[in-house]
C-alpha cells in the first residue's frame, strides 16, 4: 500500500511539473479552437524567359465538433509564356509548327527552342471529410477534380488513421485513384512521326486518351518526445495510359556531326505504364521556441528515375508575433532510360523524350518566409524563394558541343498567405 502511495505521489509530482512547464509563455500564434479556418494564398511563379504563373488558393476547413472536419479547397492556375519544345539549339534559325497546326514560330540560331504558344488556365477543386469511425480510428475521404482546356482529372481517395500507444503512434493507410483525360490541341500526335511543315497537318491517333493513376500510402507517425515528432511514409504509385507529352518533340541528328537531318523534328513517345515507389521521412523538432522541420524522400520508378529530396525549414521566432523561416531544398534525379537530348538518325528507339524534366537533373531552392500573427485568430505570411534547375544532356554529338543543349532554368517564387480563424 505504501509502495502504491509512493508511486501515485511520484506520478502526481511528475504531472504537476509537466503542467507547470506547459504554461511557460509561448509566442502568439494561431491556436485553432475555432469553427472555421480560412486559408488564402496567392502564388506568383516566374521563370526567366519562360513560364509565368499566378495561382490563387482558397482553403476552408469547418469543425463540426466531435473531431469531424470538412475541408474545401479551390485553386486557379493561370500560366503564360514559353516552354521548351524538346528540340536542340543549332547553328541556324529553326521554324516549328505550333501544336494547333495553325501557325509557326521561329527560334533564332544558337537558342534553345521555346514554344511561345504555351498558356493554360487550370481550375481545381478538392473536398475532404474527416471523422472518427471507431475508437482511436479516423477515416478521411477525399474528392478532387480539375479542368484545363486540354486536360481533365477526377479523383477519389480514402485514408484510415489508427492511433495507439496513448496516441503517441499513428498508423496510416490510404488509397487514391485518379481518372484523367488528355485532349491536346491539334489532336494526339503519332509517336516518332515527323512534325510537318506548316500548312501541312500532323498525323494524329485520335483526339482524346485516358490516364489512370493509383497511389497507396502506408505511414507511421511517432511522437518521440514532448518536442519531437517523426513521420515515415511509403507510397506506391502506378500510372497507366497516355503518359506522353503531346507537345514535345525531339531533333533527329546525324550520328557524326550532331547536326539536324532534313525534316528533323519527331514527336516524342513515352511508355504507357509507370510504377513508382517513394520513401519519405519527416522530423519536426522544437527548440525553446524555434522549430526545425526536416524531410527526406527517396524515389524510384521503372523508368530509370531515382531521386533524393532534402527539405529543411527553420522557423526562427522573432519574439511575440513575428517569425522568419529560411527554407532550403535540394533535389537530384537520374535520367529516365528513354531520355535522349537528340535522336541519332538510323537508330531504332522504342521510346524517347527530350523533356529536360526526365534528364539527370538537380534542383536547388533557397527561400525565406516571414510570418506575422495579427492576432491569435489571424496570421499573415509572405515568402520569397529562388529556384535553379541544372540538367545534363544524355549525349553530346559532334558540333553539338558548341551549344548549351540543356540550359538552366531559374525561377522566382513569391507567395502571400492570409489565415483567418472564426
Amino acid at each position, binding site marked *: 500500500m505504501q509502495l502504491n502511495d509512493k508511486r501515485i505521489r511520484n506520478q502526481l509530482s511528475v504531472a504537476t511539473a*509537466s503542467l507547470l512547464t*506547459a504554461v511557460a509563455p509561448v509566442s502568439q500564434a494561431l491556436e485553432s479552437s475555432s469553427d472555421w479556418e480560412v486559408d488564402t494564398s496567392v502564388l506568383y511563379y516566374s521563370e526567366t524567359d519562360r513560364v509565368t504563373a499566378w*495561382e490563387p488558393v482558397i482553403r476552408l476547413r469547418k469543425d463540426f465538433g466531435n473531431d469531424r472536419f470538412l475541408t474545401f479547397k479551390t485553386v486557379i492556375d493561370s500560366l503564360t509564356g514559353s516552354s521548351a519544345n524538346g528540340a536542340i539549339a543549332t547553328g541556324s534559325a529553326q521554324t516549328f509548327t505550333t501544336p494547333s497546326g495553325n501557325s509557326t514560330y521561329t527560334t533564332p540560331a544558337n537558342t534553345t527552342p521555346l514554344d511561345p504558344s504555351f498558356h493554360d488556365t487550370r481550375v481545381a477543386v478538392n473536398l475532404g471529410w474527416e471523422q472518427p469511425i471507431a475508437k482511436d480510428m479516423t477515416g478521411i475521404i477525399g474528392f478532387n477534380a*480539375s479542368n484545363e482546356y486540354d486536360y481533365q482529372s477526377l479523383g477519389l481517395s480514402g485514408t484510415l488513421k489508427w492511433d495507439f500507444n496513448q496516441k503517441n503512434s499513428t498508423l496510416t493507410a490510404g488509397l487514391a485513384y485518379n481518372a484523367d483525360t488528355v485532349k491536346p490541341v491539334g489532336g494526339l500526335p503519332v509517336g516518332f512521326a515527323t512534325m510537318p511543315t506548316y500548312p501541312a497537318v500532323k498525323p494524329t491517333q485520335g483526339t482524346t486518351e485516358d490516364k489512370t493513376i493509383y497511389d497507396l500510402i502506408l505511414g507511421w507517425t511517432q511522437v518521440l518526445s*514532448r518536442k519531437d515528432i517523426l513521420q515515415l511514409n511509403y507510397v506506391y504509385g502506378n500510372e497507366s495510359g497516355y503518359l506522353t507529352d503531346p507537345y514535345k518533340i525531339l531533333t533527329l541528328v546525324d550520328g557524326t556531326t550532331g547536326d539536324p537531318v532534313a525534316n528533323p523534328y519527331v514527336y516524342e513517345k513515352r511508355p504507357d505504364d509507370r510504377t513508382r515507389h517513394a520513401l519519405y521521412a519527416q522530423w519536426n523538432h*522544437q527548440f525553446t521556441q524555434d522549430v526545425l522541420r526536416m524531410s527526406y524522400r527517396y524515389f524510384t520508378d521503372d523508368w530509370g528515375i531515382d*531521386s533524393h529530396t532534402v527539405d529543411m525549414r527553420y522557423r526562427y521566432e522573432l519574439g511575440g508575433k513575428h517569425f522568419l523561416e529560411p527554407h532550403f531544398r535540394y533535389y537530384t534525379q537520374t535520367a529516365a532510360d528513354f531520355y535522349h537530348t537528340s535522336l541519332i538518325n538510323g537508330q531504332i528507339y522504342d521510346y524517347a523524350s527530350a523533356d529536360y524534366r526526365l534528364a539527370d537533373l538537380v534542383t536547388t531552392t533557397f527561400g525565406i518566409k516571414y510570418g506575422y500573427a495579427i492576432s491569435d485568430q489571424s496570421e499573415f505570411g509572405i515568402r520569397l524563394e529562388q*529556384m535553379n534547375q541544372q540538367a545534363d544532356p544524355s549525349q553530346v554529338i559532334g558540333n553539338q558541343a558548341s551549344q548549351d543543349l540543356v540550359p538552366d532554368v531559374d525561377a522566382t517564387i513569391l507567395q502571400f498567405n492570409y489565415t483567418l480563424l472564426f
Partner: protein
Amino acid sequence: MKINLKLLSVVLTAVILTGCSMQLVQPWERDVLAQRKMQLDPYPNDTALDEHIYFSKEASRGGAGLGGGGCGCN
C-alpha cells in the same frame, strides 16, 4: 553489400533501442506538439503549391501524402 547490411543492422538496432527507451508523452504534456507550428503540415497551402511546382518541374511525385489530383503539366 556487406557494408550496407552492417549499416542497416546498426541503424535498425539504434531505432529499436531508441524505441524501447522512448517515454510516452502524456496528454497533459502535449502543449508543444499541439501548436500549429509543430504540426506535420502547418501550412497546407504552401505545401500544396510547392508540390504542384515540383511535380511540374521534376520527374518525382508523392511521399508526404496522397496526391491532390492530376495536371496536364507533366
